[in-house]
């Protein structure tokens, strides 16, 4: 059986071995010519090609779209308008009052997104960290709870939005509980504060399992002997957390922060299904603004939508770089 398996493995591997031998010679020649740096370029080339086709070229096209006007969809049909779309987006009499801006919906969406990011990322990191710390302890049913917390990550964001909408609507589950407790029912999603809180809470609930997993992996990588030494020294749990857990979890925490931040700025699907951007424009976020401007309207404006997405990408890049720089500085300390 083992001999058969070996022969089968060799047969399956034969074409690949043949291919490897065929490219071995040219690769050796290339390495002699360009050194190790050249080899790295060769191995990175396929990924770079995919990245170029699916990320860089669309990014360049998006930028090109942002310099055009009209409602035509194809780029060659669209007139060049230079930076007009950016000027329109940034045209504001008073930046603290969105209604004084030419594209007030953009500024409202930008402000909402900024507030959302602050609350959602803070809540996400805090909840994920607490959950990871609990799940890292030897508690009964640990495997079950790890699965339970990760389960919402597997759900489609649209399903998440719908489930919570059914819970929060006038005749929803939450009001059933509220009424049974003797209180008046509320139209939760009609209240600006509750609707915004619901958007923050639901998106945290939906994604925290993923970040918990990253932090849990980091916690499990921390050597146990450090905790044992701290225990022998009689160090208080809070100090252990500050002096051992937090510093050693730094790289994982940085990853969580960057990913949560990017995801938070891009908030769309579950919030759109849950609140539709309302009440009024209190949960209108940038991605919804871009989607509605570029696609949902009959008189669509792809140029304006592209310009808004370029501005959003610019802010994201700056935030990510700043966050990475801060984490590196913290690591060096």
């Amino acid at each position: 059986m083992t001999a058969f398996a070996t022969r089968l493995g060799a047969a399956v591997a034969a074409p690949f071995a043949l291919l490897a031998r065929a490219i071995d010679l040219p690769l050796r020649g290339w390495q002699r010519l360009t050194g190790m740096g050249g080899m790295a370029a060769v191995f990175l080339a396929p990924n770079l090609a995919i990245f170029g086709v699916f990320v860089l070229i669309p990014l360049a096209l998006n930028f090109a779209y942002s310099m055009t006007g009209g409602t035509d969809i194809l780029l060659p049909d669209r007139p060049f308008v230079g930076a007009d779309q950016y000027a329109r987006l940034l045209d504001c009499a008073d930046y603290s009052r969105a209604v004084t801006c030419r594209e007030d919906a953009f500024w409202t969406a930008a402000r909402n997104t900024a507030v959302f990011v602050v609350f959602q990322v803070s809540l996400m990191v805090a909840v994920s960290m607490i959950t990871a710390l609990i799940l890292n302890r030897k508690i009964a049913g640990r495997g079950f709870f790890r699965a339970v917390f990760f389960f919402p990550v597997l759900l489609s964001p649209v399903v998440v939005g719908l489930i919570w909408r059914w819970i929060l609507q006038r005749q929803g589950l939450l009001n059933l509980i509220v009424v049974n407790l003797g209180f008046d029912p509320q139209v939760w999603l009609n209240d600006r504060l509750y609707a915004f809180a619901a958007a923050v809470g639901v998106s945290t609930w939906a994604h925290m399992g993923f970040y918990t997993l990253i932090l849990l992996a980091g916690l499990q990588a921390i050597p146990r002997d450090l905790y044992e030494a701290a225990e022998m020294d009689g160090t208080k749990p809070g100090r252990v957390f500050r002096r051992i857990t937090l510093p050693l979890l730094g790289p994982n925490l940085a990853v969580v922060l960057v990913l949560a931040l990017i995801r938070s700025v891009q908030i769309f699907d579950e919030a759109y299904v849950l609140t539709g951007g309302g009440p009024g424009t209190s949960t209108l976020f940038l991605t919804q603004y871009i989607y509605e401007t570029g696609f949902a309207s009959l008189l669509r404006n792809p140029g304006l939508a592209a310009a808004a997405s370029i501005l959003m990408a610019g802010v994201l890049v700056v935030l990510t770089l700043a966050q990475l720089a801060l984490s590196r500085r913290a690591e060096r300390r």
Partner: protein
Amino acid sequence: MTRIAFHALGFAALLAAPAAAQEQVRIMWYSDGNEGAVMQDLLDRFEEEHPEIDVVLDTVAYQVVQEQLPIQLASGEGPDIARVTNALKTDAEHWLDLRPYLNDAAYWDDNFGPYLDWMREDGSDAIPGFPTQLTLTGGFANKTLFEQAGVEMPGEGATWDDWIEASAQVMQDQQLPAAFAIDRTGHRVSAPMFSYGAIYRAEDGSPAPIDDNAMRFAEELVGWTDEGLMLPEVWVSASGTTYRAATEDFTNALVPFYYSGSWQVANLSQQIGDAFDWVAVGSPCGEAGCTGIPGGAGLVAVKYTDQPEAVATVMDYLASEEVLREFSERTLFIPAHVGLAEAGLDYQSEDSQVPPALDAFVASSSQILPEAAAMPGWLWSPAYYGAIVTRISQVMAGELTLEEARPLIDRDIADQVAAAQQ
């Protein structure tokens, strides 16, 4: 050897024959109710009569028609035929003029003539397709709730105020969350605005600034929302042009009065069943009239098709009086076909509430004001609808006052027109 080659050639020809002889026509279709199943049944019969044409009905979500079809069309791609609603006029440049391919173009002009401008460019005499149904906005009342509350339903000629007042009494008596609901779209709310005397079009056909009559109804609507008479979930709890229907609120008997349109008849019949009695009541009146807004979905041929003759054959079949009669009777749609409208239809429904509801909409169609009648064929109606729903919702949510909203509505419309004309 020659014999073998001969047989092989014959076999190859046999294999290739059906593929070569049969042309495939693809239809992009969306369904609100049972019309997809009815259409498939009709197409199956067409294929029996025309084995040389294979018709594939690609049923997609309405959003696909709204968001993906325009991109396909802009790339010179797309299905051979598509069922379209809002974009009939805005995407008119992509439709095929079937006139040269039709068996009897005069039949199309005679029967679909009043509606062809909705789907062709201004000034054109093309025949791009035909409307699968005529729709008209209008109201529905929960008769059972009115009876239980002991409130008399307003009769013919009743105004919006009459309906809201009566519905408010029902709401209070039956302890309902609201008196009425209107679908969250500028299209639906424009009907009462026209009844109040609003004019959207300037003399040159461009959008006019929103007038006092439209703002007067907007003020009433905002007031009714503030007073808790209009169900806030539909309009307040969404932003921008997000569409929200209040159908579920009506079918769950949360509101006694619901303003939507004729396309809901089959849906209401199916959803409500015998849970309560309901009636269609046409459009309540304002000072200028009691108008609804006509509209409808159209089946249009796409000009990028490779087989216009086959497409025309399919369209000739589907637009024929006999087939369209069956389609309308089984789907409970009001036909946009002059001959059928004159001859009348025998709607196939076991629900006794359906025929009177359809009759009410047919009767209501005689009260359509010219401004409302012009909307389906007016290029800038989407700009107007979008601006109205966006800004009035903000007023309802307390983000703007009506005075602040008015210039913003005009600016939004002007921006959209300017962008479209670049």
